[in-house]
């Protein structure tokens, strides 16, 4: 009996390895390892850290695509809100730490900052859903994908320039969250910030996965993403789910922004680069596939790191674009496929 189960597992694993998803994942791992042997460990470390944070942004984007059917162009702006809130919360905390080096805030301050950014990001998501998307949803549902896309374009312009008008266009950054010696792994120095940022991303992704898989609300969200009418029929409150999803995905982007403040100082268009990355990931993994987005994020991060490493910086839009074109020609539903039909049907 046990043997049979074991055999079935092996069979399924073997089958998975032969599918496109399996090949892509294995190829990513192999290429990452080869590059690590070739150029040293920092390639792997960079990939993992960038990938973790990209995963957060991309997951939020995939969620809005899957559940709300909104191709979010303003998602980078929630990242920007995260950096901005983190800057304004962390600056007084860091001043306090400088005068009171023994205080408990030395460790907890940055975490408080990130939680604050998360809350504000979620609120921003709620506000934009209530003020922008739900009026449009009430007024017209035809051509929803294109119209909402244009709406997010407008939203992005408004938020970028509101930042510029109210907070100025200068770089608002911090040097570090956690002081102390860098950690050494495989002869590579990783600053504490990067290490903790990765751990944070991993924790958030795991929590999020747990939430989506095992809680009632998470299941309701997935149900809405698969079939809106069906979800309504079984008694899921659509309005609440849409609001919750929006705030969740914006909160994810804001966490990423706050977590990476030491790398990306806050300025009006800071969100553009994460936005591009997240879109690459989402198309690569399949529109609306949330868990595929996590894996896709590491692939895109690897691709980016390798491009910078072997070809030079500045080419890091050209190579992923070329890859996306190949994907769209041969497998438009993405590497991991997508159960979400809404995006394609409407």
């Amino acid at each position: 009996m046990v043997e049979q189960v074991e055999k079935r597992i092996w069979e399924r694993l073997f089958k998975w390895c032969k599918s496109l998803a399996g090949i892509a994942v294995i190829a990513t791992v192999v290429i990452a390892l080869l590059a690590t042997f070739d150029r040293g460990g920092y390639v792997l470390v960079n990939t993992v850290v960038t990938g973790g944070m990209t995963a957060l942004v991309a997951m939020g984007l995939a969620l809005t695509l899957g559940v709300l059917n909104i191709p979010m162009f303003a998602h980078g702006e929630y990242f920007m809100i995260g950096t901005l809130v983190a800057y304004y919360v962390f600056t007084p905390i860091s001043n306090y730490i400088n005068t009171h080096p023994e205080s408990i805030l030395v460790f907890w301050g940055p975490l408080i900052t990130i939680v604050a950014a998360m809350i504000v990001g979620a609120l921003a998501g709620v506000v934009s859903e209530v003020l922008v998307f739900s009026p449009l949803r009430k007024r017209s549902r035809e051509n929803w994908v294109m119209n909402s896309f244009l709406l997010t374009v407008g939203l992005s312009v408004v938020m970028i320039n509101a930042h510029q008008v109210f907070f100025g266009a200068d770089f608002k950054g911090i040097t570090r969250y956690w002081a102390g010696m860098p950690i050494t792994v495989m002869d590579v120095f990783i600053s504490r910030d990067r290490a903790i940022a990765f751990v944070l991303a991993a924790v958030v992704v795991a929590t999020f996965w747990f939430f989506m898989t095992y809680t009632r609300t998470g299941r309701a969200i997935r149900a809405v993403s698969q079939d809106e009418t069906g979800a309504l029929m079984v008694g899921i409150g659509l309005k609440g789910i849409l609001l919750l999803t929006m705030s969740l995905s914006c909160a994810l982007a804001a966490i990423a922004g706050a977590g990476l403040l030491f790398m990306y100082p806050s300025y009006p268009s800071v969100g553009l680069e994460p936005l591009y990355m997240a879109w690459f990931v989402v198309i690569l993994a399949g529109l609306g596939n949330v868990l595929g987005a996590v894996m896709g994020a590491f692939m895109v991060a690897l691709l980016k790191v390798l491009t910078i490493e072997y070809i030079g910086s500045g080419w890091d839009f050209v190579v992923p674009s070329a890859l996306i074109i190949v994907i769209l020609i041969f497998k438009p539903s993405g590497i991991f496929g997508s159960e979400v039909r809404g995006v394609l049907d409407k």
Partner: protein
Amino acid sequence: MDKTIPTVNPFDKLLNLMCFTPLGLLSLLVLVVLPMVPPFNQEYLIRWLISAAFIASLAIAFDFTAGLINIVNFGYCAIMGLGGYTSAILAERFGLTPWLGILAGGVVAALLGLAIGMITLRLRGIFAACLAWFFGLALMGLATKMVWLTRGPMGMRVDRLFETQSNVPYYYLLLIIMVAIYIICKWVTRTRMGVAFKAIGQNMEAARTSGINPVFYRVSNFVLSCALGGVLGGFYAHYYGILTPDMMHTSKTVEVLAVAYIGGRGSLWGGAAIAFPFIFAMELIRSSLSNLPGLNLLLYGLLLILVMIYYPGGFAEFFDTYFRKPKNKMMNYLLNGERAAT
């Protein structure tokens, strides 16, 4: 038996052929005269006029895709930039005359449009928007990085089209290009093809069921729009005299998009009509409130959002509902031309 065919005088025939209403022709005449009227004959106002006319032309060509077949070409300015760089490189490296170079820019842009269209237009609209966007990013990256060809962010110097210091000839050339683009787009919409475009834009499934091959029509629409963009890019290169990769940035596309949508999607003339007052208002805000940079774009975005939610037809629909049906026969002729009056 004695059904008399209403005699249409040659002027109205010509107007109908050019797809202008008498009011449209009148406003075009105003635009022609404008650079000679005192406040507008200063050099900087002429430059504003040119940039407004440029955005207007882009908005017409953009609306041809966005309004008719409902696909947002999100890399439009990058495609325009490709046309500009092609024209500039041909002129600088191979000594081709700019007039042919501008056309060559259009051809190259059309080829890129064909490639993007062939890849994505068999899929849903959002893929086309995204891929055009990524193509745009990649093109901008290439223009920044291929310094040996484009001189990268330092900017590529291009000989200007005319040998005068004055900008007035450029303005008239641009007006001619704008009218030509408008007439081409309008002519296409009057043919069978235009009907097919509208059918696809409104309901693709229904169009497919009635025997329209959506891929063919969408690709041809996309290619035409890109070609017009490329020609405008060529003009841009030879007007400003300097090309930087910045002109291909997504925010420039957003500007065109906002004008096209506020003007009224699918109308073609709406974007052109709104571009002139709009660009002037933006420039005024920018120059008078220079201590608050970004305010003009903030208003821009807000206006776009409001129009998208509450008045999706834009200015064109507003005009059609409230001004287009006057009781007065003279006014009716002015607004609608001979065909509607009879």
